[in-house]
């Protein structure tokens, strides 16, 4: 039997979100479903690298914390949890929960695992064009680590119909995690594009978590937040007609109003009249937001047209290493000494680049021009008290990256006065995300149900 409305909550806005906020949502939100987005563009490729190198799990490293803190409470409250926490290894996440079912108190929990988003073999056979390079996948110079299609809500819908308490997937599109319980509970047909767009819009607003409840917002005196110490993820009451009221937890800090919702609506959207997701092409241009009168924000007006025939694939490519380091100067003349250091570094790194595998490098002055380069405002009346010099390079091999970072540190011994080396070199593997498209019919997703 379908309902007139359902409340769903956000439990995560990517791989670094706090588990405690998801727990708060289950405890205080009175939600029927909690959806957790656990993946950004390269998260999955990094997970695949961890898995193949044996340095960590292919699933979200928060899986044990979800098992200990979140899932037992969700079970107690009757909240169904949906998450792409499986990343590169959804079955690995299931195995973890199976192994610890007694310790976590999850025995008897009905779990659905969705896979089939891994299309690496298919991609190697069909060799599609890479959007960023306009060349074929096989022409990518470096090694492909992973290729995962963004898959839609359908398998989650089936899992819910089968009575799943927990749904684990890999590269399920962020908004699809939220759309599935809406379509299931509210009885939306698979070709009811306007309602699927409305649900996608709700998912879009919830998937970035605190971005709609006051995060990335305060810019005093123009925009302010009352209480930064008590954040809340968002939740939504969604009606069968697709209208929704966004809310945050009672008593929480932060801010949820028409302004925070407007700012998030076009976030990471390109053409708002044709926002593509695996489930529908949404038109957000006519959306309206208003104060609901009871502390929430009402959202209405998304419309939709049939879903795309092709699915986007995120292709992870290992492209060497980034090496970076910083050195700092303070007091009178700090900027002059930083400029002196910058000149030394430019000549040294430039010299290294002539015989090392250094593809690109730069030297920035933090506090002066590191974020906006030459577009930084020069109209400051007083020179900065502190300046940090940062050298960074993208290199073909780890040793070149280390050499660049070492040049920065060496400024302590041969460079301007008062160099503070409080930073430590960062050497990190680069996994670039490229995109390609595959036919929907060529992606065979699978649903596996099991009881812990």
């Amino acid at each position, binding site marked *: 039997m379908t309902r007139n409305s359902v409340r769903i909550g956000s439990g995560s806005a990517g791989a670094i979100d706090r588990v405690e906020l998801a727990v708060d949502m289950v405890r205080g939100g009175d939600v029927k479903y909690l959806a957790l987005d656990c993946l950004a*563009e390269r998260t999955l490729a990094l997970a695949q690298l961890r898995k193949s190198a044996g340095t960590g799990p292919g699933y979200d490293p928060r899986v044990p914390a979800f098992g200990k803190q979140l899932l037992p409470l969700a079970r107690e409250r009757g909240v169904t949890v949906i998450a792409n926490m499986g990343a590169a290894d959804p079955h690995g996440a299931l195995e973890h929960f199976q192994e610890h079912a007694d310790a976590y108190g999850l025995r008897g929990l009905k779990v659905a695992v969705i896979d089939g988003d891994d299309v690496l073999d298919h991609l190697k056979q069909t060799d599609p064009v890479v959007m960023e390079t306009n060349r074929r996948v096989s022409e990518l110079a470096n090694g492909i680590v992973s290729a995962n299609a963004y898959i839609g809500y359908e398998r989650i819908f089936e899992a819910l119909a089968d009575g799943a308490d927990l749904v684990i997937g890999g590269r399920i599109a962020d908004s699809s995690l939220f759309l599935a319980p809406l379509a299931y509970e509210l009885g939306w047909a698979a070709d009811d594009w306007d309602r699927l767009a409305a649900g996608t819009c709700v998912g879009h607003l919830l998937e970035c978590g605190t971005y709609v409840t006051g995060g990335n917002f305060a*810019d005093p005196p123009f925009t302010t937040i009352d209480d930064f110490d008590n954040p809340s993820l968002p939740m939504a009451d969604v009606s069968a007609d697709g209208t929704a009221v966004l809310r945050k937890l009672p008593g929480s800090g932060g801010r949820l109003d028409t302004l925070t919702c407007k700012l*998030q609506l076009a*976030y990471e959207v*390109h053409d708002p009249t044709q926002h593509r997701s695996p489930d529908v092409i949404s038109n957000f241009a006519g959306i309206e937001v208003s104060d609901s009168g009871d502390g929430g924000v009402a959202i209405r007006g998304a419309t939709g047209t049939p879903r795309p025939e092709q699915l986007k694939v995120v292709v992870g490519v290992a492209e060497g290493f980034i090496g970076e380091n910083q050195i700092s100067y303070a007091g009178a003349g700090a900027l002059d000494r930083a400029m002196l250091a910058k000149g030394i570094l430019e000549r040294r790194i430039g010299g290294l680049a002539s015989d090392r595998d250094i593809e690109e490098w*730069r030297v920035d002055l933090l506090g002066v021009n590191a974020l*906006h380069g030459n577009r930084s405002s020069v109209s400051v009346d007083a020179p900065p008290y502190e300046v940090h010099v940062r050298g960074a390079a993208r290199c073909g091999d780890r040793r070149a990256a280390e050499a660049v970072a070492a040049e920065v540190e060496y400024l302590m011994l041969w460079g301007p006065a008062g160099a503070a080396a409080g930073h430590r070199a960062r050497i990190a593997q680069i996994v670039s995300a490229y995109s390609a498209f595959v036919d929907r019919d060529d992606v065979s997703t699978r649903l596996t149900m099991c009881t812990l």
Partner: protein
Amino acid sequence: MAVKRVSVREIACARAGDKGDVSNVVVVPYEAAGYEFLREELTVERVREHFGELVVGDIVRYELPGIQTLNFVMTGALAGGVTRSIWLDAHGKSRASLMLTLELDGWPA
């Protein structure tokens, strides 16, 4: 009517997002009058001039009239994107603050 020069920050807030090498900067005015003013004055040309060499490719401005929002979509704007950029702000989140420093003439004094 007396007019004055304002920074975008005085009349609107902004947020930047990234998809690959594409940066989008959303600008939302505080009041309805601000939307009409920004539609007139915060043109692609002004934004291109302000962002300069940070944006290599096209800039397209989309309008969301239902929520009085402008969305600037900038291609080739993130030095290859968050996954391979060697810039400190690889996501380009601080590009929203750059947008807010842009100054416009003609705001009612």
